Protein backbone atom coordinates (compact mmCIF):
# COMPACT_ATOMS: atom_id res chain seq x y z
CA UNK A 1 0.00 0.00 0.00
CA UNK A 2 1.30 3.47 -0.82
CA UNK A 3 0.54 6.84 0.77
CA UNK A 4 -2.05 7.84 -1.83
CA UNK A 5 -4.04 4.66 -1.28
CA UNK A 6 -3.76 5.06 2.47
CA UNK A 7 -4.91 8.66 2.42
CA UNK A 8 -7.92 7.81 0.28
CA UNK A 9 -9.24 5.77 3.20
CA UNK A 10 -8.35 8.26 5.92
CA UNK A 11 -11.91 8.87 7.21
CA UNK A 12 -12.34 5.18 8.01
CA UNK A 13 -8.82 4.95 9.41
CA UNK A 14 -9.36 7.95 11.69
CA UNK A 15 -12.52 6.30 12.99
CA UNK A 16 -10.47 3.23 13.80
CA UNK A 17 -12.00 1.15 11.04
CA UNK A 18 -8.86 0.67 8.97
CA UNK A 19 -7.83 -2.68 7.54
CA UNK A 20 -4.76 -4.57 8.70
CA UNK A 21 -2.92 -3.46 5.58
CA UNK A 22 -3.77 0.17 6.24
CA UNK A 23 -2.76 -0.14 9.87
CA UNK A 24 0.56 -1.61 8.82
CA UNK A 25 1.21 1.29 6.45
CA UNK A 26 0.25 3.77 9.14
CA UNK A 27 2.75 2.25 11.51
CA UNK A 28 5.63 2.31 9.08
CA UNK A 29 5.07 5.55 7.15
CA UNK A 30 5.97 8.64 9.18
CA UNK A 31 4.06 11.02 6.89
CA UNK A 32 0.80 9.10 7.09
CA UNK A 33 1.29 8.39 10.75
CA UNK A 34 1.72 12.15 11.46
CA UNK A 35 -1.36 12.89 9.40
CA UNK A 36 -3.51 10.43 11.32
CA UNK A 37 -2.17 11.71 14.62
CA UNK A 38 -2.91 15.33 13.68
CA UNK A 39 -6.44 14.64 12.50
CA UNK A 40 -7.26 12.66 15.61
CA UNK A 41 -5.75 15.42 17.71
CA UNK A 42 -7.88 18.08 16.03
CA UNK A 43 -11.02 16.01 16.63
CA UNK A 44 -10.07 15.50 20.29
CA UNK A 45 -9.36 19.19 20.84
CA UNK A 46 -12.63 20.20 19.21
CA UNK A 47 -14.53 18.08 21.72
CA UNK A 48 -12.97 20.14 24.50
CA UNK A 49 -14.15 23.48 23.15
CA UNK A 50 -16.61 25.11 25.47
CA UNK A 51 -19.35 27.62 24.73
CA UNK A 52 -17.49 30.82 25.47
CA UNK A 53 -19.68 33.68 24.41
CA UNK A 54 -22.88 35.12 25.79
CA UNK A 55 -25.34 36.84 23.49
CA UNK A 56 -25.71 40.56 24.00
CA UNK A 57 -28.66 41.87 26.06
CA UNK A 58 -30.20 42.84 22.72
CA UNK A 59 -31.21 39.20 22.22
CA UNK A 60 -33.24 38.93 25.41
CA UNK A 61 -34.78 42.34 24.74
CA UNK A 62 -35.78 41.15 21.28
CA UNK A 63 -37.35 37.99 22.69
CA UNK A 64 -39.35 40.00 25.21
CA UNK A 65 -40.56 42.39 22.54
CA UNK A 66 -41.54 39.66 20.10
CA UNK A 67 -43.43 37.63 22.69
CA UNK A 68 -45.25 40.72 23.91
CA UNK A 69 -46.16 41.68 20.33
CA UNK A 70 -47.47 38.21 19.65
CA UNK A 71 -49.47 38.30 22.87
CA UNK A 72 -47.78 35.15 24.10
CA UNK A 73 -46.79 36.51 27.47
CA UNK A 74 -49.49 36.10 30.06
CA UNK A 75 -50.33 39.41 31.69
CA UNK A 76 -50.49 37.77 35.13
CA UNK A 77 -46.87 36.69 34.91
CA UNK A 78 -45.56 39.77 33.23
CA UNK A 79 -42.14 39.40 34.73
CA UNK A 80 -40.35 39.99 31.52
CA UNK A 81 -39.72 43.44 32.86
CA UNK A 82 -36.81 42.68 35.12
CA UNK A 83 -37.37 45.77 37.25
CA UNK A 84 -40.64 44.48 38.65
CA UNK A 85 -39.43 41.06 39.74
CA UNK A 86 -39.74 40.83 43.52
CA UNK A 87 -36.38 39.96 44.93
CA UNK A 88 -34.66 41.16 41.80
CA UNK A 89 -33.74 39.53 38.55
CA UNK A 90 -31.68 36.63 39.71
CA UNK A 91 -29.97 36.16 36.43
CA UNK A 92 -29.11 39.79 36.23
CA UNK A 93 -27.62 39.47 39.68
CA UNK A 94 -25.66 36.40 38.69
CA UNK A 95 -24.40 38.10 35.59
CA UNK A 96 -23.37 41.18 37.50
CA UNK A 97 -21.75 39.09 40.21
CA UNK A 98 -19.97 37.07 37.57
CA UNK A 99 -18.77 40.19 35.82
CA UNK A 100 -17.56 41.75 39.07
CA UNK A 101 -15.80 38.58 40.13
CA UNK A 102 -14.28 38.19 36.70
CA UNK A 103 -13.06 41.76 36.78
CA UNK A 104 -11.61 41.21 40.24
CA UNK A 105 -9.72 38.16 39.08
CA UNK A 106 -8.57 39.87 35.92
CA UNK A 107 -7.50 42.92 37.94
CA UNK A 108 -5.55 40.66 40.27
CA UNK A 109 -3.91 39.06 37.30
CA UNK A 110 -3.08 42.39 35.72
CA UNK A 111 -1.60 43.73 38.94
CA UNK A 112 0.42 40.56 39.33
CA UNK A 113 1.85 40.73 35.84
CA UNK A 114 2.68 44.44 36.17
CA UNK A 115 4.62 44.05 39.38
CA UNK A 116 8.29 44.88 38.73
CA UNK A 117 10.16 41.68 38.17
CA UNK A 118 6.99 39.76 37.40
CA UNK A 119 6.91 40.08 33.66
CA UNK A 120 4.92 38.14 31.11
CA UNK A 121 7.57 35.45 31.10
CA UNK A 122 6.41 34.27 34.50
CA UNK A 123 3.07 32.59 33.93
CA UNK A 124 3.47 30.59 37.10
CA UNK A 125 2.75 33.73 39.13
CA UNK A 126 -0.71 34.21 37.71
CA UNK A 127 -3.91 33.74 39.60
CA UNK A 128 -5.12 31.05 37.27
CA UNK A 129 -2.21 28.74 37.02
CA UNK A 130 0.18 29.09 39.88
CA UNK A 131 1.19 25.47 39.63
CA UNK A 132 2.42 26.21 36.10
CA UNK A 133 2.49 22.55 35.28
CA UNK A 134 0.19 22.28 32.31
CA UNK A 135 -2.58 24.26 30.71
CA UNK A 136 -5.29 23.04 33.05
CA UNK A 137 -3.25 23.15 36.26
CA UNK A 138 -5.08 24.31 39.34
CA UNK A 139 -3.86 26.77 41.92
CA UNK A 140 -4.33 26.65 45.69
CA UNK A 141 -7.69 28.44 45.54
CA UNK A 142 -8.99 26.01 42.95
CA UNK A 143 -7.87 23.10 45.08
CA UNK A 144 -9.55 24.64 48.12
CA UNK A 145 -12.77 25.08 46.19
CA UNK A 146 -12.69 21.51 44.98
CA UNK A 147 -12.10 20.34 48.54
CA UNK A 148 -15.21 22.24 49.63
CA UNK A 149 -17.24 20.79 46.78
CA UNK A 150 -15.96 17.31 47.59
CA UNK A 151 -17.14 17.71 51.17
CA UNK A 152 -20.53 19.18 50.34
CA UNK A 153 -21.42 17.19 47.25
CA UNK A 154 -18.88 14.48 46.42
CA UNK A 155 -20.89 13.41 43.37
CA UNK A 156 -20.22 16.79 41.76
CA UNK A 157 -16.53 17.00 42.57
CA UNK A 158 -15.36 15.27 39.42
CA UNK A 159 -17.48 17.52 37.22
CA UNK A 160 -16.11 20.62 38.91
CA UNK A 161 -12.58 19.31 38.64
CA UNK A 162 -12.99 18.72 34.92
CA UNK A 163 -14.65 22.09 34.38
CA UNK A 164 -11.94 23.83 36.37
CA UNK A 165 -9.22 22.18 34.31
CA UNK A 166 -11.03 23.12 31.12
CA UNK A 167 -11.44 26.73 32.06
CA UNK A 168 -7.86 27.00 33.35
CA UNK A 169 -6.70 25.51 30.11
CA UNK A 170 -8.70 28.14 28.23
CA UNK A 171 -7.16 30.86 30.33
CA UNK A 172 -3.68 29.51 29.67
CA UNK A 173 -4.35 29.33 25.93
CA UNK A 174 -5.70 32.86 25.78
CA UNK A 175 -2.83 34.20 27.87
CA UNK A 176 -0.34 32.47 25.61
CA UNK A 177 -1.89 34.10 22.55
CA UNK A 178 -1.94 37.45 24.29
CA UNK A 179 1.66 37.11 25.41
CA UNK A 180 2.64 36.41 21.84
CA UNK A 181 0.65 39.33 20.51
CA UNK A 182 -0.47 41.89 23.12
CA UNK A 183 -2.54 43.71 20.50
CA UNK A 184 -4.65 40.62 19.82
CA UNK A 185 -8.11 41.84 20.86
CA UNK A 186 -9.73 38.53 20.13
CA UNK A 187 -7.38 36.73 22.48
CA UNK A 188 -8.06 39.39 25.10
CA UNK A 189 -11.78 38.82 24.72
CA UNK A 190 -11.27 35.06 25.05
CA UNK A 191 -9.27 35.67 28.20
CA UNK A 192 -11.98 37.81 29.73
CA UNK A 193 -14.64 35.28 28.81
CA UNK A 194 -12.57 32.52 30.34
CA UNK A 195 -12.16 34.45 33.56
CA UNK A 196 -15.86 35.11 33.51
CA UNK A 197 -16.51 31.39 33.23
CA UNK A 198 -14.16 30.70 36.07
CA UNK A 199 -15.90 33.26 38.24
CA UNK A 200 -19.21 31.63 37.44
CA UNK A 201 -17.75 28.26 38.36
CA UNK A 202 -16.75 29.63 41.74
CA UNK A 203 -20.17 31.17 42.11
CA UNK A 204 -21.92 27.91 41.36
CA UNK A 205 -19.70 25.99 43.71
CA UNK A 206 -20.11 28.37 46.60
CA UNK A 207 -23.80 29.16 46.29
CA UNK A 208 -24.79 26.13 48.31
CA UNK A 209 -25.89 22.57 47.65
CA UNK A 210 -28.07 22.05 44.62
CA UNK A 211 -30.85 19.63 45.31
Amino acid sequence: MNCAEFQKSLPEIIDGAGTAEQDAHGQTCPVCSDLVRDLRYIAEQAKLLMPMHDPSPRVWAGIQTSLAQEGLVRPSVGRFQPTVIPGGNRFGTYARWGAVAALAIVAFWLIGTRTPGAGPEQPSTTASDTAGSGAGAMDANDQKLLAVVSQQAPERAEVYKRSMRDVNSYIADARKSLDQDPSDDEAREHLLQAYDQKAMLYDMATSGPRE
Partner: protein
Amino acid sequence: MTQAKKLVAPGLSEAEAIQRAQRGDAEAFEGLYGLHKRRVYSLCLRMTGNTAEAEDLTQEAFLQLYRKIATFRGESAFSTWLHRLAVNVVLMHLRKKGLPEVSLEETLEPQQEDGPKKDIGARDNVLAGSIDRVNLERAIESLPPGYRIIFVLHDIEGYEHNEIAEMMGCSIGNSKSQLHKARMKLRDLLKLSKAEKAARH
Protein backbone atom coordinates in the same frame (compact mmCIF):
# COMPACT_ATOMS: atom_id res chain seq x y z
CA MET B 1 -23.94 17.14 31.92
CA THR B 2 -24.17 16.04 35.52
CA GLN B 3 -26.68 13.79 37.16
CA ALA B 4 -27.18 16.52 39.74
CA LYS B 5 -30.23 18.69 39.16
CA LYS B 6 -29.51 21.89 37.34
CA LEU B 7 -30.86 25.07 38.85
CA VAL B 8 -32.19 27.92 36.80
CA ALA B 9 -32.47 30.03 39.95
CA PRO B 10 -32.01 29.36 43.65
CA GLY B 11 -34.71 26.93 44.69
CA LEU B 12 -35.93 26.32 41.14
CA SER B 13 -34.67 23.25 39.32
CA GLU B 14 -34.57 23.05 35.55
CA ALA B 15 -37.30 20.40 35.55
CA GLU B 16 -39.58 22.66 37.60
CA ALA B 17 -38.78 25.61 35.37
CA ILE B 18 -39.69 23.57 32.29
CA GLN B 19 -43.02 22.57 33.81
CA ARG B 20 -43.75 26.15 34.75
CA ALA B 21 -42.69 27.46 31.35
CA GLN B 22 -44.98 24.89 29.74
CA ARG B 23 -47.82 26.52 31.64
CA GLY B 24 -46.78 29.89 30.26
CA ASP B 25 -44.76 31.17 33.21
CA ALA B 26 -42.55 33.86 31.76
CA GLU B 27 -40.21 34.02 34.73
CA ALA B 28 -39.45 30.32 34.43
CA PHE B 29 -38.81 30.81 30.74
CA GLU B 30 -36.42 33.60 31.54
CA GLY B 31 -34.61 31.20 33.85
CA LEU B 32 -34.31 28.64 31.08
CA TYR B 33 -32.97 31.33 28.80
CA GLY B 34 -30.33 32.21 31.37
CA LEU B 35 -29.30 28.60 31.71
CA HIS B 36 -29.04 27.78 28.01
CA LYS B 37 -28.33 31.05 26.21
CA ARG B 38 -24.57 30.64 26.14
CA ARG B 39 -24.64 27.19 24.61
CA VAL B 40 -27.29 28.06 22.04
CA TYR B 41 -25.55 31.29 21.08
CA SER B 42 -22.18 29.58 20.79
CA LEU B 43 -23.70 26.98 18.51
CA CYS B 44 -25.25 29.66 16.30
CA LEU B 45 -22.02 31.66 16.26
CA ARG B 46 -19.86 28.69 15.37
CA MET B 47 -22.25 27.58 12.64
CA THR B 48 -22.66 30.98 11.02
CA GLY B 49 -19.36 32.63 11.91
CA ASN B 50 -21.25 35.91 12.19
CA THR B 51 -22.14 37.68 15.43
CA ALA B 52 -25.22 39.54 14.21
CA GLU B 53 -26.66 36.47 12.52
CA ALA B 54 -25.89 34.36 15.58
CA GLU B 55 -27.77 36.78 17.81
CA ASP B 56 -30.78 36.85 15.52
CA LEU B 57 -30.81 33.07 15.36
CA THR B 58 -30.46 32.74 19.12
CA GLN B 59 -33.45 35.01 19.48
CA GLU B 60 -35.42 32.97 16.96
CA ALA B 61 -34.46 29.71 18.66
CA PHE B 62 -35.73 30.89 22.04
CA LEU B 63 -38.89 32.30 20.49
CA GLN B 64 -39.54 28.90 18.97
CA LEU B 65 -38.76 27.35 22.32
CA TYR B 66 -41.42 29.48 23.96
CA ARG B 67 -43.94 28.50 21.32
CA LYS B 68 -43.08 24.81 21.37
CA ILE B 69 -42.09 24.09 24.93
CA ALA B 70 -45.51 22.63 25.69
CA THR B 71 -44.69 19.84 23.23
CA PHE B 72 -41.58 18.80 25.16
CA ARG B 73 -42.35 15.41 26.65
CA GLY B 74 -39.06 14.63 28.30
CA GLU B 75 -38.20 11.78 25.95
CA SER B 76 -34.72 13.24 25.64
CA ALA B 77 -32.82 15.65 27.84
CA PHE B 78 -34.17 19.17 27.58
CA SER B 79 -30.78 20.52 26.53
CA THR B 80 -30.61 17.94 23.72
CA TRP B 81 -34.09 18.86 22.56
CA LEU B 82 -33.39 22.59 22.68
CA HIS B 83 -30.10 22.11 20.93
CA ARG B 84 -31.70 20.22 18.10
CA LEU B 85 -34.30 22.95 17.82
CA ALA B 86 -31.54 25.55 17.58
CA VAL B 87 -29.64 23.57 14.95
CA ASN B 88 -32.83 23.36 12.88
CA VAL B 89 -33.34 27.12 13.21
CA VAL B 90 -29.83 27.75 11.91
CA LEU B 91 -30.16 25.28 9.06
CA MET B 92 -33.53 26.69 8.07
CA HIS B 93 -32.02 30.16 8.02
CA LEU B 94 -29.17 29.03 5.83
CA ARG B 95 -31.58 27.32 3.46
CA LYS B 96 -33.61 30.49 3.19
CA LYS B 97 -30.48 32.43 2.40
CA GLY B 98 -29.89 29.97 -0.40
CA LEU B 99 -26.25 29.63 0.49
CA PRO B 100 -24.35 26.47 -0.27
CA GLU B 101 -23.82 25.88 3.44
CA VAL B 102 -26.86 23.70 3.69
CA SER B 103 -26.32 21.64 0.63
CA LEU B 104 -23.69 19.01 0.82
CA GLU B 105 -24.15 17.71 -2.65
CA GLU B 106 -20.93 17.36 -4.51
CA THR B 107 -21.86 20.06 -7.01
CA LEU B 108 -22.08 22.59 -4.23
CA GLU B 109 -18.93 21.69 -2.42
CA PRO B 110 -16.52 24.48 -1.61
CA GLN B 111 -14.16 25.48 -4.36
CA GLN B 112 -11.03 23.46 -4.83
CA GLU B 113 -8.86 26.30 -3.63
CA ASP B 114 -10.72 26.19 -0.34
CA GLY B 115 -10.12 22.51 0.04
CA PRO B 116 -7.46 20.70 1.96
CA LYS B 117 -4.11 20.10 0.40
CA LYS B 118 -2.86 16.62 -0.24
CA ASP B 119 -0.14 15.59 2.09
CA ILE B 120 1.54 12.88 0.15
CA GLY B 121 5.25 12.64 0.59
CA ALA B 122 5.68 15.74 2.70
CA ARG B 123 6.58 15.50 6.35
CA ASP B 124 6.72 18.52 8.54
CA ASN B 125 6.06 19.36 12.15
CA VAL B 126 3.11 17.64 13.76
CA LEU B 127 0.36 19.55 15.49
CA ALA B 128 -0.10 17.25 18.44
CA GLY B 129 0.39 19.16 21.67
CA SER B 130 0.70 22.50 19.96
CA ILE B 131 -2.88 23.65 19.33
CA ASP B 132 -4.27 26.19 21.68
CA ARG B 133 -7.99 26.59 21.70
CA VAL B 134 -8.00 30.24 20.74
CA ASN B 135 -6.25 29.28 17.53
CA LEU B 136 -8.54 26.34 17.01
CA GLU B 137 -11.60 28.59 17.39
CA ARG B 138 -10.08 30.99 14.88
CA ALA B 139 -9.29 28.25 12.42
CA ILE B 140 -12.83 26.88 12.68
CA GLU B 141 -14.17 30.36 12.05
CA SER B 142 -12.16 30.63 8.87
CA LEU B 143 -13.27 27.28 7.48
CA PRO B 144 -15.42 27.46 4.36
CA PRO B 145 -19.07 27.35 5.54
CA GLY B 146 -19.80 23.92 4.09
CA TYR B 147 -16.97 22.39 6.06
CA ARG B 148 -17.55 24.43 9.18
CA ILE B 149 -21.13 23.31 9.73
CA ILE B 150 -20.34 19.62 9.54
CA PHE B 151 -17.28 20.02 11.73
CA VAL B 152 -19.21 21.97 14.37
CA LEU B 153 -22.09 19.52 14.38
CA HIS B 154 -19.95 16.39 14.50
CA ASP B 155 -16.73 17.18 16.31
CA ILE B 156 -17.88 19.93 18.66
CA GLU B 157 -21.55 19.24 19.23
CA GLY B 158 -21.27 15.48 19.08
CA TYR B 159 -23.91 14.65 16.50
CA GLU B 160 -23.53 11.36 14.65
CA HIS B 161 -23.26 11.23 10.88
CA ASN B 162 -26.73 9.71 10.51
CA GLU B 163 -28.22 12.58 12.53
CA ILE B 164 -26.32 15.15 10.49
CA ALA B 165 -27.38 13.48 7.25
CA GLU B 166 -30.99 13.62 8.36
CA MET B 167 -30.79 17.26 9.42
CA MET B 168 -28.88 18.37 6.36
CA GLY B 169 -30.68 16.22 3.84
CA CYS B 170 -27.55 14.54 2.55
CA SER B 171 -26.08 11.07 2.60
CA ILE B 172 -24.10 9.71 5.51
CA GLY B 173 -21.15 9.22 3.18
CA ASN B 174 -21.31 12.83 2.19
CA SER B 175 -21.31 13.94 5.78
CA LYS B 176 -18.26 11.77 6.48
CA SER B 177 -16.47 13.06 3.43
CA GLN B 178 -17.12 16.71 4.34
CA LEU B 179 -15.97 16.14 7.89
CA HIS B 180 -12.74 14.66 6.68
CA LYS B 181 -12.14 17.59 4.35
CA ALA B 182 -12.91 19.99 7.18
CA ARG B 183 -10.34 18.36 9.47
CA MET B 184 -7.75 18.37 6.70
CA LYS B 185 -8.41 22.02 6.02
CA LEU B 186 -8.18 22.80 9.72
CA ARG B 187 -4.86 21.03 9.86
CA ASP B 188 -3.58 23.24 7.05
CA LEU B 189 -4.88 26.37 8.78
CA LEU B 190 -3.41 25.43 12.13
CA LYS B 191 -0.04 24.60 10.63
CA LEU B 192 -0.03 27.89 8.81
CA SER B 193 -0.84 29.73 12.01
CA LYS B 194 1.87 27.81 13.85
CA ALA B 195 4.42 28.66 11.17
CA GLU B 196 3.43 32.33 11.22
CA LYS B 197 3.82 32.48 14.98
CA ALA B 198 7.18 30.77 14.79
CA ALA B 199 8.33 33.27 12.16
CA ARG B 200 7.38 36.17 14.44
CA HIS B 201 9.55 34.88 17.28
